[in-house]
């Protein structure tokens, strides 16, 4: 390996993004383009007696208006890819037919010459509702006599999944074990990507081709699905993900609005654009989390955890989106965290309610798992009067035990949990923090020190365990000028792989980093691909590129060796040359490219051209881990939590560019801490979303945070030749429990053992008020 990997290289993407010169879906303007707007349900649950679009149709500038009935049989249903045994899948039309099941559900669409006309005309659609009782609490939805979201399904249970292993009989018989129980709520969140959703569908009747620009994380999967939904032959469908301004999982999806846009364009023979408003984004783009968890831990007096039981109630919302029911199953899969607990029982119930669907949001099921187990480890420490550090160390497997097969059915690749924990404790100055806490308590000030040691599952993943393939495509091509074009089937949207992929290629070929250009997000350019989610882009997509580079080097070495009269194995790629170690025999990289492409004197059996591709299939997931410490102080007057320090030591395997890793960690921490302290998407009891603006939904700002002290350890994975694991979600997964543990630690003098998130001042203030002694 050369020297580019591991370098703190500035992002190729940034100059255009920082200067506002990137092109997002809304920047694409086509000839004759029409604009679409939706009429959305104001009721959480109602029968549609009539949807009358005649006034909208008659409005000047309106070209067409559609209801659910107009689309019936002409556009496919919104797809769910989670192929789980016994899963109930309700029909999910792009526009509601007969009935609406959540506030914000699209019922009709208007297409007009102008965006504002479309919006105004959507308000002219007359809808006659017959309101039905709504159910928003999943526990009430499970109760007998609850309103049914989908009458045909018989009840509101989408699935029940069990994960069980070990010897529970002997665990339950062992009376020396302490059983610690806690119910905790993992509240509903809004992903809030900076760019909302957006789509342009452009159907050409002459060619019978459908081109779709979408703000998506999965252009190839979207192409397949839109082909099925619209009935246009997949070979004539093209999806382009231009610049995408964040997704956090919310754009790992196929939405009804995309299906309607394709239908409208196909019907009208004109391009049709829809750009989601922020209000629509909060109400009708998937939400994250929303679980009720009851955990039961069986611990020995010395803190050794022997068994874990957990009952998960996952609020799925009204319909399945692409992966809705699969998300909580990841919670079950990762529930033991970084402790090799031999006895596990998890029951997961997916429940329909009259709310927007939940689906993947940064971490997707794993933040919930980490929250459960890391809160539980602190409860063990609390109950047994042990230090949370000691409890964790007591339960860590040693680094020599890896690969480690767990009772949950996954095999952790590599780890050294002791090392990250030790490092973060040193970084935070843990013993002196404890002393400071003691000192301040005497003065009536409440400092909290919270710990989280997490492991997550990423680099998704082996195809055998993924709903639609877990491999990834990469190709590398050298053109006659010696410039290199890289294609990736991933679809980064802010993570910076145009930079890290160029590092992999430039490093391998020994050429300048600026000579490499990375393309992704266009299904006509990149033949096949899966996309960007589950912290897979570098570990799976980067490996495909790395392998393609290795193949390309083999070919170039053979061509150069033939020309130079040496053996291919004697040649090295460095400083823009292909040469022998002593530098005596040498060709420039450009010369070798010319030999290959002009093909005058190729060695026998070598095809002309320099373009290699690879489809990488990972044998396993990867399991990044880390240790975080959050230091908080509670304001005794107002109950406000101030995050004073945050220390994070993350291990995402080998690091290709520390600046990209830092960026991912910082952003992830902001979202994870946001959940712990402020963020909460709230429906009232009638199913009205009351946090419908960013004035009401508290996305944290930079001033809410201290500078994050981040460091790394690097434990490589054998799952891919680069040794990288993935880092896109780690910050979010690790931070939420660290902050909550910290606040609970601060409140421990008041006898508090648990408070549900978000830890808003009013909740803390009430606790402080109950203890006037403070």
């Amino acid at each position: 390996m050369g020297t580019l990997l591991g370098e703190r290289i500035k992002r190729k993407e940034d100059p255009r993004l920082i200067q506002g010169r990137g092109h997002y879906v809304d920047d694409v303007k086509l000839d004759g383009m029409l604009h679409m707007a939706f009429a959305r349900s104001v009721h959480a649950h109602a029968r549609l007696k009539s949807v009358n679009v005649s006034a909208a149709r008659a409005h000047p500038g309106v070209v067409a208006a559609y209801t659910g009935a107009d689309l019936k049989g002409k556009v496919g249903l919104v797809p769910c890819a989670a192929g789980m045994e016994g899963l109930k899948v309700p029909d999910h039309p792009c526009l509601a037919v007969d009935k609406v099941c959540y506030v914000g559900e699209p019922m009709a669409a208007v297409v007009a010459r102008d965006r504002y006309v479309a919006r105004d005309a959507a308000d002219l659609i007359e809808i006659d509702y017959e309101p039905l009782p709504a159910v928003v609490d999943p526990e009430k939805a499970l109760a007998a006599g609850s309103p049914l979201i989908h009458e045909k399904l018989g009840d509101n249970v989408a699935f029940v999944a069990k994960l069980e292993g070990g010897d529970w009989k002997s665990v339950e018989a062992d009376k020396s074990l302490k059983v610690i129980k806690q119910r905790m709520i993992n509240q509903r969140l809004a992903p809030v990507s900076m760019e909302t959703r957006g789509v342009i569908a452009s159907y050409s009747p002459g060619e019978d081709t459908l081109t779709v620009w979408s703000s998506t994380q999965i252009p190839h999967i979207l192409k397949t699905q839109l082909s099925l939904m619209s009935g246009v032959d997949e070979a004539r469908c093209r999806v382009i993900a231009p610049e995408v301004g964040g997704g956090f999982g919310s754009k790992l999806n196929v939405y009804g609005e995309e299906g309607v846009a394709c239908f409208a364009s196909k019907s009208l023979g004109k391009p049709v654009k829809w750009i989601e408003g922020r209000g629509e984004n909060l109400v009708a783009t998937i939400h994250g989390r929303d679980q009720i968890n009851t955990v039961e831990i069986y611990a020995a007096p010395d803190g050794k955890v022997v068994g874990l039981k957990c009952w998960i109630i996952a609020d799925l919302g009204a319909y399945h989106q692409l992966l809705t029911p699969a998300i909580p199953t990841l919670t079950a899969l990762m529930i033991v965290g970084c402790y090799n607990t031999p006895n596990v029982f998890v029951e997961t119930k997916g429940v329909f309610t009259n709310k927007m669907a939940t689906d993947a949001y940064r971490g997707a099921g794993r933040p919930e798992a980490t929250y459960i187990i890391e809160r539980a480890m602190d409860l063990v420490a609390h109950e047994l009067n042990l230090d949370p550090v000691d409890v964790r160390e007591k339960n860590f497997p040693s680094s020599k035990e890896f690969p480690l097969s767990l009772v949950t059915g996954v095999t952790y690749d590599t780890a050294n949990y002791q090392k990250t924990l030790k490092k973060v404790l040193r970084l935070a100055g843990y013993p002196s923090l404890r002393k400071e806490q003691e000192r301040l308590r005497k003065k009536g000030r409440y400092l909290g020190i919270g710990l989280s040691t997490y492991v997550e599952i990423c680099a998704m993943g082996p195809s055998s365990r993924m709903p639609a393939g877990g491999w990834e495509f990469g190709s590398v091509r050298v053109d006659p000028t010696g410039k290199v074009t890289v294609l990736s089937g991933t679809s980064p949207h802010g993570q910076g792989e145009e930079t890290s992929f160029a590092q992999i290629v430039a490093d391998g070929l020994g050429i300048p980093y600026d000579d490499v250009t990375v393309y992704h997000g266009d299904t006509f350019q990149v033949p096949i691909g899966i996309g960007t989610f589950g912290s897979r882009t570098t570990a799976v997509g980067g490996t495909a590129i790395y392998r393609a580079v290795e193949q390309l080097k083999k070919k170039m070495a053979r061509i150069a060796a033939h020309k130079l009269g040496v053996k291919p194995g004697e040649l090295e790629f460095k400083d823009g040359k292909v040469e022998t170690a002593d530098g005596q025999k040498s060709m420039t990289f450009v010369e070798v490219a010319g030999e290959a492409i002009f093909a005058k004197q190729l060695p026998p059996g070598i095809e002309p051209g320099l373009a290699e591709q690879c489809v990488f299939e990972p044998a396993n997931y990867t399991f990044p881990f880390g240790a975080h410490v959050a230091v908080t102080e509670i304001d005794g007057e107002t109950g406000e939590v101030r995050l004073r320090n945050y220390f994070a030591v993350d291990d995402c395997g080998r690091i290709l560019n520390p600046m990209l890793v830092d960026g991912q960690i910082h952003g992830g921490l902001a979202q994870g801490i946001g959940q712990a302290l402020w963020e909460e998407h709230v429906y009232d009891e009638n199913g009205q979303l009351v946090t419908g603006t960013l004035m009401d939904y508290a996305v944290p700002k930079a001033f809410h945070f201290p500078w994050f002290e981040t460091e790394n350890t690097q434990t490589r994975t054998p799952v891919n030749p680069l040794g990288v694991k993935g880092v896109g979600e780690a910050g979010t997964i690790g931070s939420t429990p660290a902050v909550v543990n910290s606040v609970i630690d601060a409140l421990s003098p008041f006898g508090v053992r648990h408070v549900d998130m978000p830890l808003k001042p009013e909740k803390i203030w009430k606790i402080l008020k109950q203890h006037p002694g403070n």
Partner: protein
Amino acid sequence: MKLEGTHTILAPRDLVWQRLMNPQVLARALPGCEKMEQNADGSFGAELKVGIGAIKGAYQGRVEILDPAPPERFRMKVEAKGTGGFVKGEATLSLAENAGGTLITYSGEAQVGGLIASVGQRLIQSAARQSLNQFFQTFAKQVQSS
């Protein structure tokens, strides 16, 4: 959302009752009311232009008087829908003679939905209270000057 309050009108109870049942008087007193007419079934149909914070819109409403016990008490059922969503509610109004005037006591519960719920949640209670105060003030003036 609960709405409760009292208002004193310096006019005899019979007159206040009579005016409360008169759509023309109500239309003039109700903020943003562009039209109010009695429907064939006895209910009142109204067209309103109301703004709460950033959400301004036109609403079609229907007001129904239930269990009238003149001149003491009636129940009122209100339903309105429009571009910003919907409002529905029920209230009881009672009229009591009070030092030569009339004391109106109202108590009701309202539910909002759609955009007004998701955007206007923080403002809706105070906006509703303000509208009610404005209504009673204008109504009082009209009744007292007649």
